[in-house]
């Protein structure tokens, strides 16, 4: 009985939020947790820097990257339905063109839409003069 009463006291402390036991919920669609800058989310490819060498492709542990033609140049196409977000493609990119953004809102209705082609991945860096 004393043990249970001890437990009841702790839980009551939480109900009344006594002594630094606040509600911690982050109400997602309205507010967000602060994301770490190193977070590995959706990829982004620097349009100018990428040379389409395919090193990311060969180093990808489960070959979820393909090099495809986009316009006149070759760019990676990432199947994020398959990607394991290990960050190797970023590590190995010789041109430092591959990035990982903090975008994690990727849920979709079809499997095909999880293949992110260059049109969705490419970004253009603002050149500072």
């Amino acid at each position, binding site marked *: 009985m*004393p043990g249970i009463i*001890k437990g009841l006291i702790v839980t009551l402390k939480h109900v009344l939020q006594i002594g630094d036991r606040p509600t911690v919920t982050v109400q997602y669609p309205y507010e967000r947790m602060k994301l*770490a800058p*190193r977070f590995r989310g959706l990829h982004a490819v620097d349009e100018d820097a990428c040379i389409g060498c395919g090193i990311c492709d060969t180093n990808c542990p489960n070959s979820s990257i393909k090099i495809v033609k986009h316009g006149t140049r070759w760019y990676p196409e990432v199947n994020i339905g398959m990607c394991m*977000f290990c*960050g*190797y493609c970023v*590590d190995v990119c010789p041109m*430092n063109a591959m990035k990982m953004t903090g975008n994690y809102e990727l849920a979709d209705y079809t499997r095909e839409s999880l293949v992110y082609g260059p049109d969705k991945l490419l970004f253009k860096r603002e050149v500072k003069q």
Partner: protein
Amino acid sequence: MQTDELLINMGPVHPSTHGVLRFKLRMDGEIIKDCQLVLGYLHRGTEKLGEMKTYQQVLPYTDRLDYISAFPNNYCYVKAIEELAGIEVPLRAEYIRVLVMELNRIVNHIVSIGSLLMDLGAATMIMWGFREREKALQLFEMLCGARMTFNYIKPGGVREDLPEGFIPKLNEFLEEMEMRIKDYEQLINSNEIFLMRMNGIGVISAKDAINHGLTGPTLRGSGVNHDLRKLEPYSIYHDLDFKACSRPEGDSYARYMVRIDEMWESLHILRQVVDTMPEAKVISTSKYGVAPMTGVPSTVSTYFPRIFTPPAGEVYTRIEAPKGELGFYIASDGSTKPYRVKIRSPSFCNLTALSGMVKGLKIPDLIAAFGTMDIVLGDVDR
């Protein structure tokens, strides 16, 4: 009175099998006559994949073995490669490795205790546990950009140095954690119902435990004070002051208490690591640790060559993971891919003893004893 035996299939989808384990129970009323375990519902062929990928590519797969505590998995695999190829590791990198591994030990024990209590019907503990786990995961995310599958420890060092503001946040976490563990203890430790459920359940003697190959807290709950961090100190553990926690009773309550004690010890270790961490580089400059010419991305301070060929040979390395002794056996034939990767997973070996422990007990006891084994199915089935 003649009664029929009842055959019950618990799992693979069952709320308290921690995933996809299946118990085949032969019951006499509520008493377990025979308990047979059926594994393999999460067998993903990691060992075969290890033979098909390069050394570097295998590393992310180790995260997914024991997904609650991935750092020790990472570390053990990397340590095997380092021993095989003779790579020197800078001191600061070792400090960071121990730091993350001990942090992960706390996380693992929180989840373990939480899910044990949830199986017993008290959902509050796991909620509180995950509240603190989330804080720890934020630290992990700051450090390596992922919450569970880190891919952080690399041969020759770690992927990146500690980010700015990590140590103050860690100190904050440690302080908070102290108060929270006291809360847990107050909630659970002396709860009479909990004691009734745990005391004298799933007893295994020290001799049997060693013979069954139990390791980790499960072994130390039987009064065997063996901890690989003490027996074969690796990394910087020989410099740290800590003790291996053990309890003599050998029942479920002892195993639970060992985990609580280990959380306190881990906090103690973390404080020492934070206080004595040297300022230095985090990646080795030895033969295999040098960054190649093509360029290093600006945010990534460490590098491991894409084409890595260790000398031919065999190595078996083991460490004290939170769940027990984790071992990696790697056979190399001198090519870019491992010839054979064998994982000695603590969960798999600890589970061996379960069916003997629960004979003659009841289903609720099976769940209590199983909860204190602390297994993860990804680690059992690989």
